[in-house]
């Protein structure tokens, strides 16, 4: 029953996207232009600097590639759904969700996902970046890849918690759209992890998980840092985030007093 409802919701989103084809094409153009502008920036920068902290142009393009995977996942799978949830709280529509037999967390995730544009806005820019990376030059081992995957998953749990914390005030105030925007201020910036100041490094495992899914993941993939310590720290932070998000959800729903709260 629950699965049927969520499938129907995805189908509805799909039809909705197809109805506004202009929006959809414009969205794709925008992500492609962003990617192209950034690649040009990387080429121009490296033409001048040669290397940055031992990172070649190829390495930095990989940082960008990895960062974009995290960005698109958090954007399409978390930030957009939370933005939609805030809008529904603000207009009072959220009340109707609460009285329906739908699992709330799944609903929040599914109702903001745009399956068609979600895929088509993501795939072309990722292909473009990957075409500029010389994969043969990178020495990526399966072990490093698995460890990086673990760190990436933990970073996603942390991003979810941060976004939830930013969206949660909407349950008591009725609005937190600008607060949610704070997440976009966090990057992802292609920083070479080894040279990040120590104070900022610490934030990767706490308030700035965008650094974790961009710089730390790439450094692990490339085998540039001792992965063990980083993986342990990421798993600890990710587990804590998973536990905390349950508490935040519970508390947010407890303070919610329906429309125009």
């Amino acid at each position, binding site marked *: 029953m629950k699965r049927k409802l969520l499938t129907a919701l995805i189908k509805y989103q799909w039809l909705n996207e197809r109805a*506004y084809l*202009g*929006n959809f*094409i*414009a*969205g*794709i*153009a*925008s992500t*492609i*232009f*962003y990617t*192209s*502008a*950034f690649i*040009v*920036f990387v080429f*121009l*920068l490296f*033409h*001048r*600097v*040669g*290397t*940055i*902290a*031992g990172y070649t142009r190829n390495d930095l393009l990989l940082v960008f590639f990895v960062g974009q995977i995290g960005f698109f996942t958090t954007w399409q799978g978390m930030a957009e759904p939370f933005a939609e949830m805030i809008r529904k709280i603000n207009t009072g529509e959220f009340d109707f969700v609460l009285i329906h037999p739908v699992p709330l967390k799944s609903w929040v995730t599914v109702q903001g996902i745009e399956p068609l544009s979600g895929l088509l806005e993501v795939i072309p820019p990722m292909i473009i970046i990957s075409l500029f990376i010389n994969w043969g030059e990178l020495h990526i081992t399966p072990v490093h890849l698995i460890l990086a995957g673990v760190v990436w998953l933990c970073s996603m749990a942390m991003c979810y918690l941060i976004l939830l914390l*930013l969206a949660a*005030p909407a349950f008591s*105030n009725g*609005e*937190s*759209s*600008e*607060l*949610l*925007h*704070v997440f*976009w*201020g*966090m*990057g992802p*910036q*292609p*920083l*070479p992890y080894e*040279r*990040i*100041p120590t104070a*900022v490094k610490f934030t990767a495992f706490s308030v*700035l998980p965008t650094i974790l899914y961009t710089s730390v993941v790439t450094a692990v993939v490339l085998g540039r840092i001792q992965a063990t310590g980083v993986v342990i720290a990421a798993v600890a932070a990710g587990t804590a985030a998973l536990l905390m998000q349950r508490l935040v959800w519970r508390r947010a729903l407890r303070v919610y007093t329906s429309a125009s709260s």
Partner: protein
Amino acid sequence: METVRLFPKLVWFEAQRFKAYPLEAIANVLERGLTTLLYIVFWLIVGRYSGNKTGLSAKSVVSYYLIVGGVTPFFYTAFGIASQFIKLIKHGELNQLLIRPVNVLVYPWAIRTGRNAVNLLIGAVQVVVALLISAPTWQLHHYLLLLPVLFCMFSINAAFNMLIGTLAFYYTEVKGFLNSAVHIARLLRGELMPLYLLPLGLFHILQFTPFPASLYYLVGLLQTTHSPSWTQVGIGVAWGAALLWVAARFWAKGLKRYEAIGI
């Protein structure tokens, strides 16, 4: 005259939203702070650990990005006014404006300025901090250049905002085009990287476009280390005047196509 009297009232009215949602004001500060911090960290790493010498000092990088972040909200370089125009046209809200004694072109500026109030305040503080850090030594020609450079930046960005906003008369789903334009402009006007780091040939070509005059010249002038020449500013002024004229014509032509809701 009526428009001049109404403008601050509209700005103040919109700025009231921060009274209702004070957390949103804090959010603005946080977002801008984080963006600037990460940019600065990146460029400090570039300056300190790059293979070739870039001549980037910590002071110049920090002040460059503080000024960039500080001045952009004043000139709507992210095309916020265009976004407001698109919204008015797409949702048919323009109808209400056309029957009121309000200047349709000024209204979106007032609304956006009110909503941007916190950003403007932080922006001003950022510029002051940047100037304190870089401690520029201003000479007479810097003072003389300031007004034309400000004119360039205002007119070019105003024209871009109007041109993109007017496109909504022809095609309401223009938001994606707006985003694409922002991405390209950020690279070409020196928001992503200081333009003096570009290959010389490319920079020479760029100075004949409106982009450097829409941000980079003002930052260079305020820092004084890379202040523009009179020729470059002259080209910028010409672009500003020409683009404003084209934008005004385009707007007038677009408005004739407007058929209220359901275009």
